[in-house]
């Protein structure tokens, strides 16, 4: 602002000076580093904006993945409950009794206690085959309550 001449200080041109050749001076080459710096800054800003766009896209993809996973977890949990219900229904005495009745089975009206000798028991075990430890463990862990507890302990606190 200070460099601007005030209008009142401008002297009107005289006619005698109009015909004269203006004073000329050698102008030195302008330094180029400000242009380079400006260009660099411009490139930096452009790269930053581009990076932000890419980052935003990545975030969007991750968020979509999270949403998909959450839906998948919820769906699997629902499936677990549905299957648990179906298994409980299939194992229920009501269904078993109905199915047994359909093939002609009836509940026994009396019981008879039979003493089983150790030899007979051993023979029966041999006929049925040796039960390995792993199989026993599988059988034990297939108890509904145990399985349910396992799942519950794993999913505790999950969305």
């Amino acid at each position, binding site marked *: *602002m200070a460099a601007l001449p*005030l*209008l*009142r200080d401008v002297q009107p041109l005289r006619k005698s000076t109009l015909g004269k050749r203006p004073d000329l001076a050698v102008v030195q080459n302008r330094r180029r580093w400000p242009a380079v710096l400006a260009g660099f800054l411009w490139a930096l800003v452009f790269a930053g904006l581009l990076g932000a766009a890419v980052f*935003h896209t990545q*975030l*969007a*993809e*991750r*968020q*979509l993945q*999270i*949403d998909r996973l959450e839906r998948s977890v919820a769906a699997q949990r*629902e499936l677990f*409950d*549905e299957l*648990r*219900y179906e298994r*409980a*229904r299939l*194992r*229920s*005495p*009501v269904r078993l*009794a109905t199915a047994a009745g359909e093939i002609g089975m009836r*509940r*026994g*009206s*009396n*019981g*008879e*206690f039979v*003493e089983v000798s150790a030899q007979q028991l051993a023979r029966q075990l041999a006929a049925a085959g040796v039960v390995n430890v792993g199989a026993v463990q599988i059988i034990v862990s297939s*108890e*509904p*309550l*145990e399985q*349910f*507890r*396992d799942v*519950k*302990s794993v999913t*505790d*606190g999950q*969305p």
Partner: protein
Amino acid sequence: MVSHDGGSFVVKKVAKKSASRTHGRSARGRAPGRATRERAKNGKTSATHQKPSAKRKSSRRAEHRTPMRRSKGIRRSRVTAPPPEARASRFRPGSPRRRLIAALVVMSLVMLAIVARVAFLQTTEAETLRSAGADQWTRSYDIAAQRGTVFDRHGNELAMSVPAVSVSINPKLVENGPATIQLLDDLLELPDATTAELLDEIESKDRGFVYVARQADAAVGDQISSMRLAGVNVDRESRREMPGGDTGRSVIGRTNIDGEGIAGLELQYDDVLTGSGGSRSREVAPNGRSIPGSETVTEQPIAGDDLVLTLDRSIQFSTEQVLLEKVSEIGARGATAIVIETKTGEILSMASVRLDAVAGEYQVTSGNFAAVDAYEPGSVAKVITVASALSEGLVTPDTSYEVPWRKQYYDDLLKDSHQHPNEWMSVSQILIESSNIGTIMVQQEMGRALHRDYMSAFGLGEKTALDFPGESPGILKESKDLWGSERVTVAYGQGVSSTSLQLAGAINTIANGGTYVAPKLVKATVGPDGSVTEAAPAEERRVVSEEAAAQTRAMMREVVCRGTATRAQVDGLSIAGKTGTAFKAADNGTYFNENGERIYYASFVGFFPADDPEVTVLVSVDEPPAGTNDRFGGTAAAPVFAELAPTLIHELGIRPAAGTTGCE
């Protein structure tokens, strides 16, 4: 006066006033131009100096003026620009300092206003605006806590929640209503009345929300969702299911459509099973998708605890089945049965069946009548009287009394169940033959107050530790409050009332060596993290001596082998028990129904193996047919016990001691 006339500016002036106006303008600080000054001097407008041709044109226009305008002497003239010198003088730059100060002041004022507004928004209205903004871009969802599962003692599901959906419509948004409802009807199999109501709602468009179906199948809900029908909403919810059908329904109870317990254990343990709901709020874009990188606030729901009951699903089912078969066979009103593990008091099954008047068939009831209905136990209570007297040492099993078949007590002539001559009967015989008069004689040895104390110690007259919803404490009057023959009839179970649950607990005391064990129904709870918390052991207290209990057990074994309960025998198994055939008080205050027939409550309570009991069973038949042989405890209830015993032996793995036979 300046007007715009045909693209050139003209000044309409009154000649007499032009000078003063011009002068006035210069007086406001503007330098008048030369021409203006001349005009002011000559008292003429600049029009007088115009060329003749222009003057002619002006006079021609004047001819067309209205008379009034002519009369006022209005004249027009062109505006002339002031000379350059004057312009230079008028539009000089002025003082930049002043301008800067003015600009600074203006900017400061603007900034001040902005700051004031920001401060106002950030303080006074901050909360309102923040919440309003949050409402626009955040969506909150309630996350329902999963209701706990009810397991039997082996981990089999008795009641559990399964995924379901609720389908609703917004009648104002539904397009092609009849077709939409037809589609929903096909998928959900709606009742005709519901379909008609929905069509009416769509027609009227009065409401914005109407339920179509609650707790519908989740797969059907997915189908409906995939169709993206306008105005049709599908929301997730859960449905309470009992995979075993009605098995255990009397005990488990039920929930309402919102999943809240309203009966049975579902009600009693509602706060345990319910858990606490959570919520999730996330920032969403207008299309409903989450905004990437935005914050999602999730308050995790805490799933309800699971209940592990002492019930055994197989035994529960078998108990219900044998009860249903028996009441159907004899035409009773209903029946209840309880199976208790002798030493722990854990209830293995508790069943109630009753004739459904509407359906016309016997069903497992949703009400737990074994805990809710109190009735006069009748002869089963003789066990309490005899055991108490034995424990007090007032009698021995061999103590004998001369017992008539009937005798006057206070205002009543009381009788035994059958006529017999006066005979000497031992205490054992009194119990085996179920003599009312003989039992009164034993009670009189004790005195009414002591007898009453023993009955209380056996658990009569107060609710059990289960504290089941709606459980009845029964009626056990203070001895001083007994009236008339009640003073003695309480000895054989009339004039006192108890629930099946109380009675089973009382007789289980004898089976358990004289120690009362409170009935127990909940074995453990499973927390959200899968951890198991065992329930506290059942309360125990000694009621009668071990010797008295053993003596009573021996007598009860004889009851089964050669007394009134022979139909409770099971081959190869030693069983002890006692029958009861009590008069049932009707709603009219008598023991007779509206047809004048006496109404009964037939019971049998037994345990086995008699020498070392593992399980105690009480069977009560409500209103067996009067006038038939099926009205007695020995004929209506004892056979149910015998039917059930093989299942119990199998399920519990009971093995009688070697050499033990039934009654041989």
